[in-house]
């Protein structure tokens, strides 16, 4: 731990870390993701196992929240049926920006084993909400969940907030002028 060792002698090492504001903000955002506690089907049982002591999901800085308004990302773990789909959309709309979605399991990705005859199954949650990370498997092993989480963290860390906002403003200007 190079950085931590240097903390013991702050003046010799300078005590200063250089970085952009964006980097530091993203570093913080990536490591304290709160998620919407939301189990749908079989994959949710693996998710429970993931939350327990063996795999310890909380070491990624995640805390389960029961309400979408406090959540940074949503984990769709399991089969999304048509009856449920509208509720999921509503939950997604209630979440505050910036928000992310991890789709876990073949069912949430594309309908899974129910793709052909499942008259009541939505074939992929990406038909109603945007998905940032897909985790394949039926059910995915807890290791795959962790991999998906790391992928999301990486994505958040590399995100350009300010440039994105600038770009958004420019885009809106173009729209206005057009």
């Amino acid at each position, binding site marked *: 731990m190079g950085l931590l060792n240097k903390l013991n002698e702050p003046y010799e090492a300078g005590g200063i870390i250089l970085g952009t504001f964006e980097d530091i903000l993203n570093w913080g955002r990536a490591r304290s993701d709160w998620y919407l506690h939301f189990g749908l089907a079989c994959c949710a049982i693996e998710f*429970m*196992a993931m939350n327990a*002591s*063996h795999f310890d999901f909380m070491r990624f800085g995640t805390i389960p929240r029961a309400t979408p308004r406090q959540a940074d990302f949503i984990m769709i773990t399991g089969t999304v*049926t048509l*009856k449920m789909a509208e*509720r999921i959309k509503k939950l997604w709309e209630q979440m505050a920006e910036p928000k992310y979605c991890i789709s876990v399991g073949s069912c949430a990705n594309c309908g899974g084993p129910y793709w052909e005859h*499942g008259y*009541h199954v939505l074939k992929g949650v990406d038909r109603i909400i945007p998905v940032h990370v897909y985790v394949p498997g039926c059910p995915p092993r807890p290791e795959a969940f962790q991999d998906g989480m790391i992928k999301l963290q990486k994505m958040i860390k590399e995100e350009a907030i300010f440039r994105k906002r600038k770009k958004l403003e420019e885009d809106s200007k173009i729209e206005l002028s057009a």
Partner: protein
Amino acid sequence: MGEKKRIELDYSKIESDRMRLNVGPQHPSTHGVLRLEVELDGEIVTEVVPHIGYLHRCFEKHAEKMTYPQVIPYIDRMDYVTSMNNELPYVMAVEKMLGIKVPEKVEYIRVIMCELNRIASHQIAVATFGLDAGAFTPFLYFFRDREYILAIFEKASGARLLFNYFWIGGLSADVHPTFKEDVLAIVKQVRKTNKEIEDLLIYNKIFIERTANVGILPADVAINYACSGPVLRGSGVKFDLRKNEPYSIYDRFDFDIPVGMGEVGTVGDSWDRNIVRMREMEQSCRIIEQAVAQMPDEGDVQEKLPKRIKPPKGDIYMRAENPKGDLGFYIVSNGTDKPERVKARGTSFVNLSVLPEISKGYMFADLILILGSIDIVLGEVDR
């Protein structure tokens, strides 16, 4: 500031409207995607209307479109915490239709796997029941143990949760060489943890206060609602298919049927349903020990079968004792390699239907506990 006036309230004169509250489908303590419409008078529950179907995955439609062996993975996904137990009645039914007898070794492995899965399922049930009551530690203890059980399943079948392990006429693969030692080690561990949980949770004063005398289900109501499993036995009815109508080789083992006796409250309350599960784990351990001792080492694990499985015309109803209760499959065959109709009698589906009956008149917080004590899995309720 003027003089403070004391307001005299006659509480009996205050009229409160009934309030309708929506619980779910996204709610941490509905054990999945159950939606309850609750009518409340203050804190007292006056009516509960369950709305189900948020996980309706068209199992019966799939069963009609698939060949007999292909149906098994979908059966796994019905009650996804007890996949091994789910597969058993289905494969037994098809085997009975075809008139085949599976090898001795297969029967023993099936029984051991089913009992292990029963333990794993009850562990989840008690753990989440503890969560509902506000105890988080048992959850961690049980899930630690459950991982060891899943490790055995994984070694045998390759999967952690949904196994597709029992095939028609046998098993998909033989067990690994150290199977017996692994199983016995687990039995030891389960007993140790159960002892700890009994001290920590079951006989805890707070837990007893919260669960005793809550959600009392009398025996005759339980039978009229066709409840089964720990819900029925918690009401003091000594009925277990493994004893009353022995299937597979359950008649060779010596075990007891624990029933609710109202030790800390009334017969048939939430605590009773829970203690039945705890005691059943011990009985499963006994069955496993006997089965491991009797199990032959040598032998095939797959009976010779025709390439296409075509049972004769007719229908059959086969049931077996699931951890949650009595799971039945009604299979109609039309003589081809695809079933005409497979109807699953979902255990949780039937057990859940008793909820409106037994939760009336309790506090709202108790409703969550009553639901937890019934132990439903939504995959089986909605199928």
